[in-house]
């Protein structure tokens, strides 16, 4: 079969040529100057590109990989290495990013590349506008880069064929599967080598918690700003990103929670209207079917429908279903305290965005959960902000092997000859 190479340059190749293509790329020392410069240069190009600037998620990406951030990342990496521990690249990383969150492939690739790995990325033949822009900018950036960074990245594109996936899986030292449970299941039909490792990103669910009295204590302006942050978290990817909130839990009394949530959601709806959020009619219909279905099967007490927003108030979180259609639908519930949330949390729950809680309260929740779920706790407004810590992994560490170096001589024997 044939497949398309998209980077370093666009061309078609036969499947049999793939191993040579991958083998030709070079490995680098972690945070080698050449690769650091690629990151910074890509960031600069995104900021300056007129097309790219139309996409807020691309600007977020560029901001995330600007120079200050890369320098900070390099320092964090150095601090992971102690005297007896040297982090070295795993080798070849095979990335299978999701088709629909366009920027993920760059985050995944960048952390692998900065830690010195070679990368092969599979993109779907159907690509969105922002993916094509990213691809173009990445191609331009790498074309002007110096070795060894210049040749460490290959991007290919093919459909649902198993052969290239099987081939690359057998060759790679680590495989990164984004894209949910079904994708993980399907890709796993192709084995990786015995010494390779796998990083998977299955389907996740995310929610927000807001302390009611803290919210009611906010000024008009602050409430607007919180609603704006929440809107960004939820709507940038049509509420379909794993870390976008779908359930909002208010902690406080019943009457306060009622007042606060009504105020909050009408502001979020206003924000959606203000930003001219557009929901495709087909999704709007799916949302209505989902809403009706939820009313039949769940303890929905009230349903408030705004133009692009549906809010369903639950009387209880017991047996809460994590199914969700996306596109601006929120469940709304109330608990007395944050710790009460623990019994309703399940393995699927990933990001908890919060407002109004003290650090001790958040830490207490993590301890109460004790690893059962929740991999990120970030303020409302940072749900989509990518981080080296993601889904319970430290990606800086995951992309490296850890070489143990014990340099202390045993029992007074020294090989260093004394002169």
């Amino acid at each position: 079969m044939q497949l398309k190479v998209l980077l370093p340059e666009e061309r078609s190749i036969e499947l049999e040529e793939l191993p040579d293509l991958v083998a030709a790329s070079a490995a680098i020392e972690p945070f080698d100057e050449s690769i650091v410069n690629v990151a910074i240069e890509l960031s600069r190009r995104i900021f300056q590109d007129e097309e790219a600037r139309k996409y807020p998620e691309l600007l977020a990406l560029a901001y995330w990989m600007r120079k200050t951030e890369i320098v900070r990342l390099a320092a964090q990496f150095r601090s992971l290495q102690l005297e007896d521990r040297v982090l070295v690249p795993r080798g070849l990383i095979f990335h299978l990013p999701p088709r629909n969150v366009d920027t993920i492939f760059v985050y995944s690739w960048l952390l692998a590349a900065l830690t010195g790995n070679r990368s092969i990325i599979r993109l779907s033949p159907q690509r969105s506008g922002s993916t094509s822009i990213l691809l173009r900018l990445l191609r331009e950036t790498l074309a002007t880069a110096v070795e060894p960074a210049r040749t460490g990245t290959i991007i290919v594109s093919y459909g649902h064929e198993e052969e290239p996936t099987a081939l690359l899986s057998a060759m790679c030292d680590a495989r990164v599967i984004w894209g949910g449970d079904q994708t993980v299941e399907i890709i796993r039909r192709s084995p990786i080598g015995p010494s390779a490792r796998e990083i998977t990103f299955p389907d996740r669910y995310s929610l927000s918690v807001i302390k009611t009295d803290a919210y009611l204590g906010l000024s008009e302006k602050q409430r607007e700003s919180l609603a704006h942050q929440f809107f960004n978290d939820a709507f940038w990817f049509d509420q379909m990103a794993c870390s976008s909130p779908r359930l909002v839990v208010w902690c406080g009394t019943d009457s306060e929670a009622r007042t606060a949530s009504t105020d909050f959601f009408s502001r979020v709806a206003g924000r959606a209207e203000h930003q001219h959020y557009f929901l495709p009619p087909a999704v709007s219909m799916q949302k209505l079917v989902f809403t009706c279905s939820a009313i039949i099967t769940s303890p929905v007490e009230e349903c408030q429908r705004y133009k692009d927003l549906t809010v369903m108030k639950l009387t209880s979180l017991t047996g809460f279903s994590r199914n969700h259609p996306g596109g601006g639908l929120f469940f709304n519930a109330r608990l007395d305290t944050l710790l009460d949330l623990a019994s309703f949390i399940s393995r699927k729950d990933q990001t908890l965005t919060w407002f109004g809680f003290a650090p001790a309260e958040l830490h207490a929740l993590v301890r109460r959960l004790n690893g059962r779920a929740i991999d990120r706790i970030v303020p409302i407004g940072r749900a989509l902000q990518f981080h080296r810590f993601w889904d319970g992994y430290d990606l800086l560490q995951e992309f490296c092997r850890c070489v143990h170096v014990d340099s202390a001589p045993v029992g007074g024997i020294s090989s260093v000859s004394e002169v």
Partner: protein
Amino acid sequence: MTLDDLISLPQYSLPQAQKESALLAELIRLSDRHVERSAEYARLTKVLFSGRSQPKSLSELPYLPVGLFKEHLLSSVSQSDVFKILESSGTTGQRPSRIVLDRETAQLQTLALSRIMTSALGPNRLPMLLIDSADLIRDRRQFNARAAGLLGMSNFGRNHVYALDHDLEPILPEVKNFLSRFGHAPFLIFGFTFLVWSRFYKQLENAGLDLSNGILIHSGGWKKLQDQAVSAADFRAALGNAMGLKRIYNFYGMVEQVGSIFLEGDDGYLYPPNFADVIIRDPNTLEEVPQGQPGVIEVLSALPRSYPGHCLLTEDLGVVHAVDSSSCGRLGKAFSVVGRIPAAELRGCSDVIAAKVS
């Protein structure tokens, strides 16, 4: 005016205002009935339409999305009164709609359909040519909405002849034989739009068939023909030119509201019968849109008594072109179906690789 009146009065004879007030009273009674008998419907209307007082117009009546019948079996009759459960054909990978019928509703549907058909065909059964394969209704394992449609329509004809073989190839001798026996006087042709076009017209356009006494009734949607860039006007013109067919009636209907179909008038627009209506809504706000503006079609029908499907928001887009002012003498709303709501896919973390393979 009762439901019986709406059914028995000449169809398309009521001015919109008069029809609306009669239909509104009937649909409010029907809503109350479903609230009493279906716990799910009672919950849905309470939660979704709670703030609404007694509806003052058809657009204020609670409605359900048609897709809900794919996920839930909604019934307003006891188990022992279930006469039949209708299933939509549904596209692959999709769950079919399931519609609960009791004897009363099934009878109403048959009666209503016949009132609509006789308005176009006259009171007598006509010889009938079916553009489909007889195997479809013989094979009970494959009995689906298409077969049900064929059987339902068969009631309006006699001396039935199926024009296609098992592989949906035309059987020219059968067709010629039918025409030599019945072609000199009015006869009925029925088939699904796409089959009429691709398996009958396209294969036989040069066969010299004379269908000038035929009345073609067809349905099933334009999607496949739109993909081939064939419009309703092209369809009419082609069949008229090649086969002399002049009377062609498309109809719009769905398994979720069997019986209350919307039949084309001579002006090419679709018309609701007395006991049904359409409302066009904005797909996002769900508010009714002004005449002339496209939107999602809501279909209303006074027939569904065994399931709460009397007001349904479809997944089709349509436009109301005129009210009480058609050129073919029909009163009420004249509308057309623009097509399905275009499929859309949200972005998100789930890759479509998986969705497609599984």
